[in-house]
């Protein structure tokens, strides 16, 4: 009897939990406006916001999956990605007066530059701060990760100063493009999906199909056995950091265009949310990180718009705690980790 109740709770309790906010405010919308447009817009904005979080979360989860390290510096890599993107588009002369073609080509180039910069930087971070500590107790690289995070934060602080800096609204982010079934799709929304969806699809294909992707999964599951297959584990770990960094770079550009404000502290804030997303989805699990990012984006939007922005962090983390209590391994995490 007790067991079945518990089973039902863990199965449907989680779904019920995730549905509480949208259902409550959906009912409120129906009562007040007679339709669901309000909550639908919140959820849609939540998804586009969450897409950026998801891109960052992927980097936490890939790295954790392969060396069981929380790369605290990852949020800062994302921040540097935004800074690099803004500096680079300034350098190639993108501005409010640029033509549409110039803008599209220029931003594509900026995307590549941000991805390459952040990917390269993440590889260097691993070489300098984590690889020398591979055999050391787990706490040692954790501390160097925190150290790296602070160092990069200070780089950002020196680069653009201590207060938020607004950047040119190149894509007129808040302009609505069109409206479907009462949902307003802005240029920012389109951008977030246009960057995230192809990247996540490509990444998933790479990890499941490509030879190097298989090497990554093998190394994540059993590094020693991977060595015995002839997989170069060091190279594979570098590759993981490269990919995670590239995703953070893409997120950095998207964030700068989407929010039109950048500052040195954005990496800490977004990084914390992305890390939470990765844990919520089941750390080490790629799809979990994406799902976690989208869910957090939605919770954030609903809370910002319906409750109060000052409550948002508390609500996001209350959700995290509840989800972990129901499913300690995260939404899509494995039941157990295999030994060895």
């Amino acid at each position, binding site marked *: 009897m007790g067991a079945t109740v518990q089973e039902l709770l863990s199965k449907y309790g989680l779904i019920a939990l995730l549905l509480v906010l949208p259902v409550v405010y959906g009912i409120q919308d129906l009562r007040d406006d007679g339709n669901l447009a309000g909550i639908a817009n919140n959820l849609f904005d939540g998804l586009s916001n969450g897409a950026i979080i998801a891109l960052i979360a992927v980097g936490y989860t890939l790295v954790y999956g392969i060396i069981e390290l929380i790369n605290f510096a990852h949020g800062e890599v994302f921040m540097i990605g935004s800074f690099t993107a803004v500096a680079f588009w300034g350098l190639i002369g993108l501005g409010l007066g640029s033509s549409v073609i110039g803008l599209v080509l220029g931003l594509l180039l900026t995307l590549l530059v941000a991805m390459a910069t952040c990917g390269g930087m993440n590889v260097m971070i691993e070489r300098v701060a984590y690889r020398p500590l591979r055999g050391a107790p787990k706490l040692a690289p954790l501390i160097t990760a925190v150290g790296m995070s602070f160092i990069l934060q200070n780089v950002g602080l020196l680069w653009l100063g201590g207060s938020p800096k607004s950047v040119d609204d190149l894509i007129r982010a808040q302009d609505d493009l069109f409206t479907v079934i009462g949902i307003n799709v802005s240029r920012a929304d389109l951008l977030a999906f246009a960057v995230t969806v192809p990247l996540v699809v490509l990444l998933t294909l790479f990890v499941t199909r490509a*030879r190097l992707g*298989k*090497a990554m*999964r*093998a190394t994540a*599951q*059993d590094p*020693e*056995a*991977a*060595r*015995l*297959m*002839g*997989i*170069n584990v060091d190279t594979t770990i570098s590759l993981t950091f490269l990919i995670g960094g590239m995703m953070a770079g893409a997120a950095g550009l998207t964030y700068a265009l989407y929010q039109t404000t950048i500052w040195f502290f954005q990496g800490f804030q977004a990084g914390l949310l992305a890390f939470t997303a990765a844990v919520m989805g089941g750390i080490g699990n790629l799809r979990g990180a994406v799902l976690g990012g989208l869910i957090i984006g939605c919770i954030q939007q609903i809370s910002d718009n319906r409750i109060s922005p000052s409550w948002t962090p508390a609500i996001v983390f209350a959700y995290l705690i509840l989800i972990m209590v129901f499913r300690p391994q995260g939404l899509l995490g*494995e039941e157990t980790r*295999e030994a*060895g």
Partner: protein
Amino acid sequence: MAILEVRDIHTYYGNIQALKGVTLEVEEGEIVTLIGSNGAGKSTTLRSISGLTPPREGSIVFRGQDIAFMPPQEIVRLGILQSPEGRHCFQRMTVRENLELGAYLRRDRQVAEDMERVFDLFPRLKERERQKAGTMSGGEQQMLAIGRALMGRPRLLLLDEPSMGIAPILVERIYETIAEINRQGTTILLVEQNANYALGVSHRGYVLETGTVALADASDRLRENPDVQRAYLGA
């Protein structure tokens, strides 16, 4: 000429010395076994050959080339493949994916053929092709670990305790297969605690005691040696 010559290797785990000068040889076409009790250094010897824990001193010559300080992937490339102690199958991958990873460094076109050969040797794996390794029994995972090593086309196959934790009836089947693999032309270095089986299938054997070779002889003579019988054959 010996395909593998291990000369006086000393291997450490941090400050703990596990091998205190191990010397052994494997001839082309042979099955050589390494027996010894817990902690004698059998696994460490195989790990040293594979490059997982390189020796601090000594040399390991494989087909004329010193491999003692090569990284594991180079050693695999030369044709030394290992089925490690405890099997170490990729738990969340299917049987087929595990076998494909065994052929990770190969670029030739005969991988599919070799997979059929592995399925012929272990029909059980064919039935379980799409099953996740982690959900299989210990015996099945042992077959998978051996099959996976075979997928790398080994010139020298290292097997670490293929009988560990497996029912006697299945151990017999696995040992028949090991003999068959050797008949098909693969040289094998076999580590076992179960000396009965190991000395039954092998041509020569070494007895390891606390990090050194205590005895080396033809397997049938080792089986008749009273010291070996007392210590390792439970007589």
